[in-house]
């Protein structure tokens, strides 16, 4: 699909230059997003350089193999369309209607809602003015308070909302790895005299035989 490849390259190029090609900082933990964007840019520069100097410079085979994979992963994760309608849809889905219905702004569905229409118009006006996502969000927070955002921000204490689950994941994962290692390294229970513990291929052979004969 040459056309799609080209599109990807264009997006890639703009991202490498630090342009907002529809990428959504609000979707990721702020600082982490910036770091990741830098990484993407670096990898892309590498890729572009490798492409232009393909005949003169040889890259390592392993790096060469994972580059397309990395490229695809980052491109899929961080790039997207950036037209105003899409931005309106995206930002509108990250805000709440403040009428008390507890619904996402663009999903508030009751006719005569005293707030949602005005909020949508404000959002559209901000986007038409060319405000950035963070500026739009700041404006809404100043006017309606922090509960207008459908998710915690990535600043101050709000960061804890995102950090805790991933910290728990890392902690839990490390704990399980330690537990598995400890259980694995435990000595085998003693066996009666005259019996020889089986290991390796001999044990595998009997294990296979047992599986085939006992499992349905």
């Amino acid at each position, binding site marked *: 699909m040459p056309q799609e490849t080209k599109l990807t390259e264009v997006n890639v190029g703009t991202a490498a230059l630090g342009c907002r090609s529809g990428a959504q900082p609000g979707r990721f933990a702020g600082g982490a997003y910036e770091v990741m964007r830098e990484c993407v840019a670096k990898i892309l520069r590498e890729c572009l350089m490798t492409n232009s100097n393909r005949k003169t410079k040889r890259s390592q085979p392993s790096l060469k193999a994972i580059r397309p994979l990395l490229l695809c992963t980052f491109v899929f994760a961080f790039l997207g369309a950036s037209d105003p309608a899409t931005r309106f849809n995206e930002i509108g889905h990250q805000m709440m209607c403040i009428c008390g219905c*507890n619904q996402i702004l663009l*999903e508030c569905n009751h006719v005569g809602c005293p707030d949602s229409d005005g909020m949508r118009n404000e959002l559209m006006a901000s986007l038409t003015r060319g405000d950035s996502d963070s500026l739009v969000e700041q404006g809404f927070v100043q006017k309606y308070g922090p509960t207008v*955002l459908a998710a915690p921000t990535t600043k101050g204490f*709000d960061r804890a909302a995102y950090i805790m689950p991933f910290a728990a*994941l890392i902690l*839990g994962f490390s704990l399980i790895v330690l537990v598995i290692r400890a259980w694995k390294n435990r000595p085998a229970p003693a066996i009666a005299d005259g019996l020889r513990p089986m290991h390796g291929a001999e044990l595998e052979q009997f294990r296979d035989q047992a*599986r085939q004969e006992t*499992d349905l």
Partner: protein
Amino acid sequence: MAEIGSFALLLALALSVYSLLAGILALAFQTRVSSQLTGVAAGRPVPGEESSLVAMLRHGSERIGETARRAGIATFGAVLLASIVLVICAFRDDFSIAYILHHSNRDLPAPYKFAVLWSGQEGSLLFWSLLLAAYGFVLRLRYKTDPRLFAYASVVLSGVQIFFLLLLNFAAHPFAIVQGTIPADGNGLNPLLQYPEMVIHPPMLYLGYVGFTIPFAFALGALIMKYPGEKWINITRRWTMVTWAFLTCGVFLGAHWAYSVLGWGGYWGWDPVENASLMPWLTGTAFLHSVMMQEKRGMLKMWNMWLVFATFWLAILGTFLTRSGIISSVHAFAQSSIGDWFAWFLAITLIVFLFFFFKNKSHLRSEHKLESLVSRESSFLFNNLLFVLLCFTVLWGTWFPKISELVQGNKVTVGAPFYNRVAIPVALLLLILTAVGPLLAWRKTSLESLKRNFMWPTIGAIVVAIFLMATPQKWGSAFGLRPWKDISYFYSLMAIALSVLVALTVASEFFRGGRVISKHTRQGMFASMVQLTHRNTRRYGGYIVHFGVVVVIIGFAGAAFNLDKEQEMGYGDKMTIGPYTLICRSYTDDDAPNYASEWAVLDVYKGDKQIDTMTPVRRFYKASRQTSTMPDIRSGLNEDLYLVFEGLNPDNGHPILKAHLNALVMWIWMGVWIMLIGTVLALIPNAPAPLRVPAPSRVASAHAEPVATGD
């Protein structure tokens, strides 16, 4: 009537208190007798009077224990009587009872008058108490399975029952009388609850919530009595599976109700009350997996104890959230003092559990030994980590607004965008484990074997992913999936590809096992697979549940392709959404005793062909003077066309319609049915082994080797 109900509730409380105290007394005597007998067995000299004391104690304790059991059974009768009285009052429009006045009206249809029982705070607590008493009734009838363990469980159940009966008698009385003049008609039932599923959804959900008390009662009982062996975990597992099935059914019926009634086009809003139902479901699911480690290898005894407790505790915590008003939710009952009661109950249960856990934890010690990282055991450890982590994430997100308020002085909203960012990656990891887990054998799996059996499903999943990316979008919702366009497309593609991977590994397990049976019995492949399932219902029923889960996940993945459009629609006006064109034919209205309604009549075209006529409705309920929408949904395998008649534009009087095109939603409901079928299959006892088995011939091909054994 109110007096009868009040009396029945007081009687139930007295019976429960007796059941608890007499049960404790009987068990204390029995423990004494056991220690005396142990003394005899150990050869210590026992005087003659002591032997007769032992006999007397034994006889007395047995009789007291029997009265405690019967009091527990009678509690069910008393609570049932109170519930019947409340329902009769609803049918008789007895508005002298405050609960009936606030939740019913004369023109309310009969099924909803029945549903009044669980439609408000007091009634739903009575319903909870009824279900708990019903579970206790079944448990006490089945006491012969293991009289001593069941006696301990009965005592724990009585303790929980007393809490709910105290609430009903002293804090949230369902038979409270209206002071002053009695109104001629009631305030009516909340319009959102006037939908057929509301007659099924709360009972299912409550059967799930309440049911987790039974595994907790067995676990705590086994812990207190230092139950020898693993029989209790087997009994507990079956109860947990039944309860889990009810909760699954309740949660998804709630989702379906939200989808069909609330009119916002979605089925899950990450509201605190929805989260409250999800948390015990996650820990309960983790328990259903890790319990196998205890049954097969005697491992994770302490962990399982904690999982059972956490599941019960989270079910009560969810109720606390709903009832206390501590966290704002669209579902929450009005803030009342019963939140304090729940907080105390949660604290007491935690203290009791911790006390017995630390007192008897030496009994739960087991020798853990792993042979390999690539084994079923380690996959269960990671599986439990991810389930508990998901539960923690949901709990954290639910409480974060409160925590934020305490720390930084202002509340924040934790809605769908937060959970999408945090929970989806974890759920995808869990999906990978669901694919790999069944291919791992207990103790050790060779990497070669894993590679051999994993290769074709992986290739299949990659092919499907490439196919979905390469196909044109006009083919349907899930086609033309370009993950680079949006992160939600990327997640969807991953979810669908991993679901295919799981489905193929499940299919390969059935195929491999079926082929072995087919070779032995010379019957067809399908018959062999049926026989295979019947021989090990738990294992293959579990696989069917996994298959149901992936069908549900595919349905969730469809959310990335949803479209919606809102438009004023006069006569003959057109609206186009996706492949559909809607033409407004007419508007009409109707008047029923309970409500007045306005209908929009729209012809639906796909291309040039008319395929349907849809009629979204907007109702005005007279008693409660509230408006509600009844969306019209045209469901299909590929997408749902979901129309909402939102009302009239206040400025110009033009009708406003909102259309949603929701992709793959039907898959969610189909997946739930498959999950339930799998659970029922897993509960069926295994077929007995055939009397005559032909001599086992070694399977010629190495590929036919079933990699995983056991459940």
